[in-house]
């Protein structure tokens, strides 16, 4: 981990019995460990349910939500909830039908727009040390439906690779997923932590993907993330070592000279990446729960991500006014298609109407988009 450092480890009661705990602690020599006895509450089982942020107040007239995110504190937990969960899409917009593998929550990176700032009710980098045991259950679910394609990812509630040098989840996950024919595992990141992937002998059914943005947004808003160039260099290395790649232009941010900015990113992609070996590229615009706005304002006073014209969408989240989204999507789609006509482009959480107008076609609904993405899996991995 190049840009961040764990300064403290918290151990929940019972986690010291897990072999993963021992392994993780051995990779953090000299880091103080604090045992937490008897304070575990049912909130641990409500990990993904609450949107209430931690609040810290001072008497200096700052009464706003001030999430104590504890990005340098690693909290090892035996998670009691479901490890495999469908992506929480909404009825009003078309979802990709992704399955989330919950290996951890929160993220050491500090992107100003990150929804995790408001999403979880507990701070710290929370890593689930019982993954190894629970993975058997997850694989059983996958094996019990051999005709269904499971598109699984770990990058929804954390960066998939940010703490991989410490957790080494990839050592565990790659062999487990690589040997199954009805699943793909997508590791989504903004880091360059690919060492363990490159050392692994498993490639089949594994997608390594990077979140991309314009250089302006990457530099200004994605704090702690690798530079765009370094992300793409890491992607190139993975591609040359036989990994299939994915990319995610999400969240697109409307900012001054955004067209020029996103074109620069596309130029970099052209420079480093072979478009033939890309399974998909998602496109989505910035959206957020209304409660996130004051948190962003407080934590990132210089941010530009809130400057756009946001309206309340049909799902209650804030999103760009429709013509602005259409502009962003059309521009990206046209230019990506100029680069290569078959990139598996898809929109994240958009309506049929917006699909039609910006992409020129629509999967119609979540099932349709799932089929489209399943076909991409079959095409690339067979």
């Amino acid at each position: 981990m190049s840009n961040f450092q764990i300064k403290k480890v918290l151990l929940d009661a019972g986690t010291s019995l897990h072999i993963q705990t021992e392994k993780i602690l051995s990779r953090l020599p000299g880091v103080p460990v604090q045992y937490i006895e008897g304070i575990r509450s049912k909130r641990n089982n409500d990990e993904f349910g609450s949107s209430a942020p931690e609040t810290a107040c001072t008497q200096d007239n700052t009464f706003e939500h001030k999430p104590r995110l504890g990005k340098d504190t690693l909290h090892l937990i035996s998670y009691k909830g479901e490890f495999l969960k469908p992506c929480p899409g909404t009825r009003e917009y078309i979802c990709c039908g992704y399955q989330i593998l919950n290996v951890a929550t929160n993220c050491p990176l500090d992107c100003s727009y990150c929804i995790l700032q408001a999403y979880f009710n507990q701070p710290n980098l929370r890593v689930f040390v019982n993954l190894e045991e629970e993975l058997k259950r997850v694989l059983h679910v996958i094996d019990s439906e051999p005709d269904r394609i499971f598109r699984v990812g770990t990058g929804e509630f954390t960066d998939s690779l940010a703490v991989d040098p410490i957790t080494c989840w990839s050592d565990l996950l790659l062999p487990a997923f690589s040997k199954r024919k009805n699943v793909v595992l997508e590791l989504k990141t903004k880091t360059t932590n690919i060492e363990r992937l490159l050392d692994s002998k498993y490639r089949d059914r594994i997608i390594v993907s990077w979140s991309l943005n314009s250089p302006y947004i990457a530099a200004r808003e994605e704090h702690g993330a690798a530079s765009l160039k370094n992300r793409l260099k890491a992607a190139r290395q993975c591609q040359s070592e036989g990994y299939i790649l994915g990319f995610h232009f999400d969240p697109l941010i409307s900012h001054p000279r955004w067209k020029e900015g996103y074109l620069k990113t596309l130029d970099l992609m052209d420079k480093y990446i072979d478009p033939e070996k890309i399974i998909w590229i998602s496109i989505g615009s910035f959206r957020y729960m209304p409660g996130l706005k004051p948190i962003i304002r407080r934590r990132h006073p210089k941010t530009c991500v809130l400057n756009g014209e946001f309206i309340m969408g049909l799902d209650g989240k804030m999103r760009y006014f429709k013509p602005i989204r259409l502009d962003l999507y059309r521009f990206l789609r046209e230019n990506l298609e100029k680069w290569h006509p078959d990139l598996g482009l898809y929109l994240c959480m958009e309506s049929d109407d917006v699909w039609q107008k910006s992409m020129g076609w629509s999967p119609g609904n979540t099932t349709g988009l799932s089929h489209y993405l399943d076909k991409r899996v079959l095409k690339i991995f067979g």
Partner: protein
Amino acid sequence: MEIRKIAGATPHGVGLNNIDDSPGPCCMSFGFDLKPLILSIDTIGLINSPVLIESGQGKMTIIAGFRRVQAFKYLKRDEIPCRILLENSVSHLECILINLHDNLSTRKLNDVEKGMVLSRLSLYLPESEILEHYMPLLDLPSRRETLFLFMALESEPDVFVKESVVRGSLSLKTFKRLLKMDHESRTHVLNLLSSLKFNSNQQTQLFEYLIDLKHIHDKSLSELLGDISIKRILSDENLNMPQKAKAVLGFFRSKRFPTLADAESTFRKKVSRLGLPKGVKIVQSRFFEAPYHRLEIRFREGEDLKKKIEQLTRSDRLETLRDPWEEGG
């Protein structure tokens, strides 16, 4: 003296001249109207006697009953029946609690008064006890940020701000924002809020726009509020107060959401050109997010409805209402 014994103490007449004129260190009264109490005392006399404490040199300090003493003074009485505590017989905290419970038993405290209670208690009690016990007693959530907000309200130096909060013309949310503003911005905002009657929701909306615009255009609130268009709205004699408030909000909304405002205006123009029958309306979906519009027809009877529908079907202009976001459209 045991604090509970005060309830059973016999009142004695105390000369008003012997009572310290100031509200006293325990007073929790702010922004009150003395007239109803004067009328009540004048009509049926004093029901609940004030509590005083001897403060030396024959003077008495008010522990509870500042308004009652004021009412007696207004009525030009010589004496008022009071229960008297001996100097040093009760602690300062006990005096505060006597005042608090005396008030709570007869009325609701306003927000500034709640701040006064919390500030005084915070001098003697740990924060945890105030949060756990006294915040619920004041109908407030047991949250630190609420505690600090009310204490900040109590220590607010500008009486106009306090009075505005008590009157309801300044919401607590707005007050919280004022705390973070520089002097100039604060003055501009207070001038605007005092000259126009924004309700609580409008105040919230106004600040949403102002803070966003401040970030987008890197301008101070004073610069934004000093815009010539705002001055024009404020001096427009054809508009009443609520209309001016609405116009100011509309101005900032169109600045904050230029594309949306433009789309709404274009849509309204298009609809007005359709020549719809009377009582027929076409309403866009909220923020144009859903791809449909809504047709509303107001009618008396079926015959009337039929007539309006026929008029609509005969209209050759309806087709001009097209999807505003079609590519190249």
